[in-house]
């Protein structure tokens, strides 16, 4: 099937006849019913379960016969995967340093389209337990776009008394629509977005989070860019940054994380024609394409990354727009681990979904796609989870010089592991220092040098993600906001 022939009929174009509960059901189960191979409602497909059980059985059987050899083989496998992921990340940085394609729309160009020429823009804002909704509305009212062409939809869970109480005190403009989401499982952001998409008016669609501060001209720039882009450009990702990056060491690490992503990794993925996991906010879509590919998967907790993969597999392109949305960087360690564990869990869900065969989606079997899916989407959480155990082994051997541990690392594995550990960790710290330079932020250099502390937090988040993938795969870890210095209270 060609790209233009593929339609995933997950959502109806008109939902006027549906009540709130029916809309929530369609939003939650449309994709799972029309294209089950694309949905994370089932964590694994039947084929995947057979393969996993068979592989586990083989490993256990071999472990009984030759335990030392099994451990050595597993360590060797992990070591070589580390090396492959390291080489791939180095390649991404190299390509990214050569400069990726970022769409730049000047202020003059952004204003060159008259109000009549501008398309209707649907802005979806999923909100949960948000007493400061007045701030959110204020940020949205700063958007420079004709009010009659705006379709801003506040998506609020019907039983969210905190937000409803705060909303009652506000007098909203006519461009705002408040959509009550019926309390149906899964209680996730993508399900809310799907409900909001039903009966939306926009030719273009974007999402913002409640604490986001988008640059005022962003909608005009995105509209201009999409109107002048090739039809296969289905989505434009704006850049993300933080307004509280100097708050503490964790926010500085987070700023480096995002900086590396937007300065090097994202351009590198573009250059290698790899699939691009979207960010969860400030993605600007053509509404028609969004409906065509089945919109968001409500069972995937990184629905944005999944959508990026699906767009790629269907032959659509994602471009990056030079326009910044400011967000709140997580400044609390436990809150950060909860948020990051959701991202890792979602990446694992996305990996499992896109390794499935068949369905209405044409397989993109090229090397770039597989490398991006396996080494980046899958490799990021899996290697973060295994990192800590490697460090513990290294530390235990260094302290005790145990013959048992030494026996697990024959020369072929040992030297590769040593190269990965020394060169790999050193390179990543070097990349972070480069990122600080690219961002023009010398204050981030010492945070870059202290990166191993950030990796420890990533390890904990990855362990939590792996456990939750088994016991509660679609549970949405809500990130608490308002912890920046302006919002901090005792």
């Amino acid at each position, binding site marked *: 099937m060609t790209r233009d022939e593929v339609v995933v009929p997950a959502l109806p174009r008109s939902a006027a006849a549906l009540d709130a509960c029916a809309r929530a059901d369609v939003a939650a189960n449309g994709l799972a019913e029309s294209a089950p191979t694309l949905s994370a409602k089932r964590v694994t497909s039947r084929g995947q379960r057979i393969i996993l059980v068979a592989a586990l059985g083989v490993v256990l059987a071999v472990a009984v016969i030759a335990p030392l050899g099994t451990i050595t083989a597993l360590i060797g496998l992990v070591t070589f995967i580390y090396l492959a992921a390291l080489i791939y990340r180095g390649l991404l940085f190299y390509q990214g340093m050569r400069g990726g394609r970022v769409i730049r729309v000047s202020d003059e160009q952004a204003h060159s389209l008259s109000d009549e020429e501008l398309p209707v823009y649907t802005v979806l804002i999923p909100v949960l337990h948000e007493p400061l909704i007045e701030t959110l509305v204020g940020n949205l009212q700063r958007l420079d776009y004709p009010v009659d062409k705006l379709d801003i939809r506040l998506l609020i869970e019907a039983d969210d008394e905190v937000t409803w109480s705060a909303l009652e005190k506000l007098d909203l403009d006519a461009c705002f629509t408040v959509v009550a989401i019926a309390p149906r499982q899964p209680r996730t952001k993508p399900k809310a977005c799907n409900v909001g998409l039903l009966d939306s008016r926009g030719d273009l669609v974007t999402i913002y989070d409640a604490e986001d501060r988008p640059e005022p001209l962003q909608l005009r720039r995105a509209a201009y860019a999409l109107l002048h882009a090739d039809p296969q450009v289905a989505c434009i990702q704006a850049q993300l940054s933080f307004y509280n990056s100097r708050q503490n060491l964790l926010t500085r690490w987070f700023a480096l994380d995002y900086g590396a992503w937007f300065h090097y990794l994202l351009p590198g993925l573009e250059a290698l024609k790899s699939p691009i996991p979207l960010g969860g906010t400030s993605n600007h879509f053509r509404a028609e394409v969004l409906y065509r590919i089945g919109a968001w998967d409500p069972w995937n907790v990184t629905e944005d990354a999944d959508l990026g993969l699906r767009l790629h597999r269907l032959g659509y392109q994602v471009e990056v727009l030079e326009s910044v949305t400011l967000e709140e960087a997580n400044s*609390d360690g436990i*809150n950060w681990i909860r948020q990051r564990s959701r991202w890792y869990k979602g990446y694992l869900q996305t990996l499992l979904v896109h390794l499935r065969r068949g369905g209405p989606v044409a397989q993109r079997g090229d090397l770039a796609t597989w490398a991006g899916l396996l080494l980046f989407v899958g490799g990021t959480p899996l290697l973060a989870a295994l990192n800590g155990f490697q460090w513990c082994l290294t530390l*235990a051997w260094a302290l*005790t010089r145990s013959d048992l541990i030494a026996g697990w690392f024959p020369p072929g594995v040992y030297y590769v592991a040593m190269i990965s550990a020394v060169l790999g960790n050193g390179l990543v710290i070097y990349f972070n220092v480069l990122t600080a330079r690219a961002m023009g932020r010398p204050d981030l250099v010492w945070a870059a040098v202290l990166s191993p502390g950030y990796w420890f937090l990533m390890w*904990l988040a990855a362990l*939590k993600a792996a*456990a939750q993938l088994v016991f*509660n795969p679609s*549970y949405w870890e809500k990130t608490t906001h308002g912890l920046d210095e302006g919002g901090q209270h005792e």
Partner: protein
Amino acid sequence: MNTTPLTLAPHARPLRRLPRSGIPAGTVLNLGAALVVAWLLPLAAVGRLPISVSDLGWLSGAGAVSLALLFSRWFQPHIDDRDLDVILTVLVGVAGLWLVGTRGIDLRGAHLIGGLLLSAGWLFATMGTRATMRLWPAAWWVVACLVPGLESVAIAGVGALSGLVIAVLLLIRRGWATPGQLVPAARTRRLMGLVYLVLVVGIARVLA
């Protein structure tokens, strides 16, 4: 696994509180148990007591600092994660047992750090990650036990006095905890702490 903040159920009656503060007395007992029971029991199980006079001084200092850290005012967003508590309990518990049971290297240092990790495991299980991480500066007084004390009462005095001075300065600078800053551990947490202790002592005996 659901991750709700550590709070009292509406119908639960709080434990008796220390005067002029919102600090539950049970939390003090919990901390004392961690510093003494979770640290000493495994060491006793493997036959690596007694501790010296100077150790007692440093441990007293650690106790004083711990109390001050926990019961002075600090930013408490009440964001907790039970999954993380369990993960950290297991990780530090395993690391602590490995150190307590180890042989062939500096035993005293390994056992001291091992005992410290085992105490931390108890705290992660019963009080949660946030409260436990609040206490980490007090670990310096425990690590100071590695300094050869030569059974010196003077060094014991230095350990105890330094801890007391820091504790007093903390309380003066930050003030008492606000009501609701700390809440008693729920029953499931106390049960998990008990299971943890039983496992730790049992495995330590096996390793001995």
